[in-house]
């Protein structure tokens, strides 16, 4: 066996990418936003994050070992990503037992029954979030108010989107910069828009994601909001404030950069990605403006997830040689 001549077909070399490395990059990209959450809400959010990631990894490895009876897959870090995203979609004062139930739904219902990574039709973290929102509406919508002193989870307040829905927000003078840097109520991972954009830029530079989904989601939301605003407000200043508000409020950036771009549940072609992104943007705004919930990003992504197989079937990449 000493000097074997190995015969295998071409290509004989492989690029630097691996599933683990891609997932690792997503985790790295989420760290700035997590850091801002700690600064804004205190150390408690790390407890929620640890609980969520720990439960996701534990459930996946147990299911893989005792039910699937296959090789362990947790080393690909996809369960860590799911856990991290799930945590970041929760209020900063959520009870830990609800986090554990969320992790069970994400891994045990949305991911593993379909065959694990790569086979699930819906984004596991969002399925879990929506489940929790319906099952525990009170806990899932009692948001801790950010405090400059930190550790302020005694107070709870309305998110900007909820305030806007109730007609309590003055679009002339809301705090754009504060919202942009994390000073708003909401799921703890979604508030730090600037940090999320930073993470998104990292993913783009590392070529983990392409621009197609984030740009089409956010672009559609902006256009949608601007059109709606044009009918509702008198001054261009208010219209643009309204559009900007919708891009930085709620889960717009977290959803567009990190949730809608989930490989498994998004289309395979760039054309398909743009269609999918436009669908998410339009549905999100529809729900925000006319739906029962103040925020629609999660529902919009789930609905568009269900369209992905259809998009993949009918939207083909441009074949070489098709140019006239």
């Amino acid at each position, binding site marked *: 066996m000493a000097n074997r001549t190995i015969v295998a077909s071409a290509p004989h070399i*492989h690029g630097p990418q691996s599933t683990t490395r891609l997932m690792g990059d997503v985790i790295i990209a989420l760290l700035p936003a997590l850091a801002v959450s700690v600064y804004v809400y205190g150390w408690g959010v790390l407890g929620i994050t640890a609980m969520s990631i720990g439960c996701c990894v534990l459930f996946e490895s147990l299911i893989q070992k005792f039910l699937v009876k296959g090789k362990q897959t947790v080393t690909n870090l996809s369960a860590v990503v799911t856990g991290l995203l799930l945590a970041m979609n929760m209020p900063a004062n959520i009870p830990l037992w609800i986090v554990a139930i969320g992790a069970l739904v994400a891994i045990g219902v949305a991911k593993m029954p379909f065959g694990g990574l790569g086979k699930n039709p819906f984004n596991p973290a969002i399925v879990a979030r929506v489940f929790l929102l319906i099952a525990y509406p009170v806990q899932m919508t009692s948001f801790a108010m950010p405090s400059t002193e930190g550790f302020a989870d005694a107070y709870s307040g309305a998110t900007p989107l909820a305030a806007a829905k109730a007609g309590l927000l003055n679009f002339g003078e809301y705090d754009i910069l504060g919202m942009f840097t994390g000073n708003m109520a909401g799921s703890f991972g979604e508030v730090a828009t600037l940090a999320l954009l930073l993470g998104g830029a990292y993913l783009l530079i590392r070529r983990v994601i392409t621009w197609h989904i984030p740009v089409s989601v956010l672009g559609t939301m902006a256009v949608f909001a601007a059109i709606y605003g044009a009918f509702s407000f008198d001054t261009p200043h208010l219209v643009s404030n309204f559009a900007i508000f919708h891009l930085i409020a709620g889960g717009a950036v977290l959803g567009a950069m990190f949730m809608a771009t989930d490989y498994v549940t998004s289309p395979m072609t760039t054309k398909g990605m743009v269609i999918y992104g436009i669908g998410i943007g339009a549905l999100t705004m529809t729900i925000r403006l006319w739906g029962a919930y103040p925020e629609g990003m999660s529902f919009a992504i789930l609905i568009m997830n269900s369209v992905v197989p259809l998009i993949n079937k009918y939207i083909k990449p441009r074949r*070489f040689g098709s140019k006239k």
Partner: protein
Amino acid sequence: MKTFPIGGVHPSDNKKWSKAKAIEPMELPDVVTIPLAQHIGAPATAIVAKGDAVKVGQKIAEATGFMSANIHAPISGTVTSVDMQLNGQGLRQMMITIKREGDEWAEGIDLSTDLVKECNLSAGEINARIKEAGIVGMGGATFPTHVKLSIPEGKKAEILIINGVECEPYLTSDYRTMLERGEELLIGTSILMKAVSVEKAVIGVENNKPDAIAHLSKLAKAYNGIEVKPLKTMYPQGGEKQLIAAVTGREVPAPPALPIDVGAVVCNASTAVAVYEAVQKNKPLVQRVVTVTGKSIKDTKNLLTRFGTPVSALIAKCGGLPEGDNRVLNGGPMMGRPMANLDSPVMKGCSGITVLSGAEALRGEPSACIKCAKCVEACPMGLEPYLLSKLSKKKAWDDVEKNDIVSCIECGCCQYTCPANIALLDYVRLGKQTVMGIIRARNAKK
């Protein structure tokens, strides 16, 4: 700077191992084995028998029909057998074996190194000489050059493209040829222009070879209608269709369309030099430059090698195989063919022997497809490798065909880029071969 329009990957070019090594002649082997099938098309027919004495450059096998190529003796000596032998892949194939005596060339071959610039032959005469010399595409595809130069009725060539891209990592044989045989390359290009009656030729070279670009650009000033075009480095730019698109912006439509349908004729840089030798020096194709390279090869070289020389002799000259597991490739790491039998001969299409050793030689463990779409992004033909591989696995041949599998050029970008280490091209290749068989059978019935 231009490149091709869709997909592509950017593997580390690894040319540093052998790019500084000037071309040097490989010692003449004592015995050569010459396969009769060294080109695309019908194998040549042997015209010598056991016991015949042959000289270097003497024709020993004749093209069988139009789509075939002549083969000439690469050494002088005695034919010892015309029989089945093992080829590089370990399959039995018809070969002529010659035992060497001296190095005596056939009559009428100009062995001097003097440049012959004038060429007053007609297009037909040029093509006849190229056919006689047994020239085939030397980039690896081994398509008979005289077939390529015979423009079909009703079509017209508008541009000749010389492929100096050498996008395959590691290989440097075309690069060294462009640097050391630049004049011959340009004269060969002029001759090819005359053969297909075009006014314009473009030599495409990737910008990772700036010295070759500078050298050829300087020389090209003395030739009419020849332009050297630097291209942005991207694999697989050396693919015929990719190169045409990079140079002209035109895309060759899906098979069965050919480059001539967009007015292009493409020849490899080393082929142009071979054309020069055949037409101006009456020298048939009996040798070529072979890069012997690899991170663990002690003394990498670019060797001017007579055909039929055993690959093992080249490797031995470069310090031998590294200890441990190795993959020995006929060609480069992206498209090279793995060799099972290292005593098999160097042939017309062998631009290099790449040795990957140790961890480089092992395939990664495949895991589940995460639908990251990187294969779709990388495919230079705009196909969906994940889908083609999945459908081929399921043997859904109708769907495989509908999704344009025959357009696949087997460049390997999909598999190179797959983060899950899935052997995409293995399945796609299987699917493509099966579908092409189905199409052939269907056409035969008509």
